């Protein structure tokens, strides 16, 4: 078996500054060794440990879809030591990527179903990967109706503006954008995710609902998803915990007897109901 701690070297091909405050950037990376790409077969919702050779590793969900060949994308918010170091990296520099890790979204289960995705803030990155995946020409006919509800604190904090513009023009995707507080140019919805979700009330029939965002958003959105008819088995969350190894060994990302890194990060609410949340 291969050493699970060895990262692939990857080159930074492009950096997109996503937000007005410049604190969130999306890095597009390509494999330096072609054979590494073949061994990095992933599905949306999985994650990888990104190395800044100097400062260490941290886990990030892939923001790209496996249907986009030749590169991986990671959206990184500048928050701690590793993310700050990565933010200082430039096009052409080398970083390390170790993965793919975790279970990812149950793509095969979702086929033939309607999918409702609810994303808040920075937590939207893996839902962007899933949206890109289902909109892929070959995949789109295999999924039912797709609804994406995405909110950010303000318009300047919305990620993937090019994608959002493209998706807004499509007829095979219901896209709802909302912001907590508007600016002068914003003419769209204003309101928090739980409230908007309640207003839109997407049908639970033959559908799965996926919720990714900050803990407070999840906390107030889950009662709404239940109210509009989504069963806990069909309500999926992607959890975040601090991780070091990503391979079920270092002992810090557990929630009860589950490790977020290897048993997750995607769990259904039914799976989580018997588990324990350390909420301070």
């Amino acid at each position: 078996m291969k050493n699970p701690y060895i990262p692939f070297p990857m080159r930074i091909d492009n950096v997109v500054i996503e937000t007005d405050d410049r604190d969130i950037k999306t890095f597009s990376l390509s494999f330096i060794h072609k054979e590494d790409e073949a061994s990095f077969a992933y599905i949306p919702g999985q994650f990888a440990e990104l190395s800044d050779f100097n400062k260490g590793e941290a886990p990030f969900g892939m923001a790209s879809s496996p249907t986009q060949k030749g590169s991986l994308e990671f959206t990184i918010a500048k928050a701690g030591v590793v993310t700050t170091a990565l933010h200082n990296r430039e096009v052409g520099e080398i970083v390390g990527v170790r993965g793919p890790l975790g279970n990812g979204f149950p793509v095969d289960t979702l086929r033939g179903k309607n999918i409702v995705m609810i994303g808040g803030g920075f937590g939207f990155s893996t839902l962007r990967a899933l949206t890109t995946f289902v909109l892929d020409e070959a995949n789109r006919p295999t999924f039912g109706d797709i609804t994406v509800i995405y909110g950010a604190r303000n318009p300047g904090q919305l990620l993937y503006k090019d994608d959002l513009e493209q998706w807004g023009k499509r007829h095979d995707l219901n896209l709802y954008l909302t912001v907590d507080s508007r600016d002068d140019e914003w003419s769209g919805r204003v309101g928090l995710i739980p409230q908007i979700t309640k207003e839109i009330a997407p049908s639970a029939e033959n559908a799965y609902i996926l919720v990714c965002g900050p803990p407070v958003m999840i906390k107030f959105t889950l009662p709404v998803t239940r109210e509009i008819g989504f069963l806990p088995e069909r309500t999926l969350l992607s959890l975040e915990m601090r991780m070091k190894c990503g391979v079920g060994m270092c002992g810090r990302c557990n929630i009860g007897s589950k490790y977020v890194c290897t048993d997750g990060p995607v769990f259904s609410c039914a799976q989580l109901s018997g588990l324990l949340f350390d909420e301070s």
Partner: protein
Amino acid sequence: MSDKVIKKEELPNVLKILKETYEVFVPVKEKGFYRFKVLEDENKVDLNFTNTRLSPKSLLFPQSERMFEYSLDEADEDAYVIKEPPKDYAPTVVVGMRPCDAKALRLVDVNFVNPEFKDPWWARRLESLTLIGLGCKEPCSTCFCTSVNCGPFNEEGLDVLLFDLGKNYMARAITEKGAQLLKLAGVSEDATSDLNKQAEESKAKAEKQIISHVPTDKLKEKKAIDLFDASFWDEVAFACLNCGTCTFLCPTCWCFDIQDEVNKKKGDRIRNWDSCMFPLFTLHASGHNPRSEKVQRVRQRFMHKLKYYLDKYDNGVACVGCGRCVNYCPVNIDIREVFKLMNET
């Protein structure tokens, strides 16, 4: 293979032969405490010890280990290529490991060799080890191994088990690896039935001498959420300093951190022991900390050992009853009491 006998005066000679093929570790007394060190003088080996203060897990899982090295110098051809430094997997014998510590290695093994991933360093070191255990004929008042699927002469995880019978050791090969080792060391004299009887008596006496017992029978059926929400955690955690001594001494604690250390253009990726007792263990870069309170961390340690491990691996509790945490906790937190609370409440 039948049990063998080693006369005590022959032990140095046996060790001398082993030294030619293996790296040999023995307990060595240093500054008042025993620890496993490389055998230097086989004539000075002292097996009259209770147990080492630190568990021997560090032989497989060092407190600090260089995982990789890399160059940040763009002029280097292999800049940014992560490389494994040379590591020592020479065949190694540990002489005098206590049965509880050997069992602990089996409990930890399920973490480092999980269904999806294998920790290559742990796995290779475990393969390179041959463990000669020494039964505990004089257990301590804090030992409770017999309550947790272990015992003073437990064989699990060992290759050879020694019984200290006064002038002689009786050597029992547990595995083929152990039998081979005894053969190589020239240990061929069969133990007499009298010696065998003495060994069994010594074992029975030691088991009887264990006065600490903890209940574990209800842990499996209890709901994790009920234990998690139990009212006793504040009291258990009250005196805790979060010093981490328990986790560092514990033979079944395996948590670690990974850090990069860079000096000029040369970098190392290092793995260090970490502890669930430390607030930084789970602190997110965002500032959110799912276990920010002391009581949450104390609960995590005991729940992990006595419930989560049991539920996840169905391999018993992650405790071998060595009593180290009981002996060395600076505020006398006693895992035996927590067993009772969790099992009985």
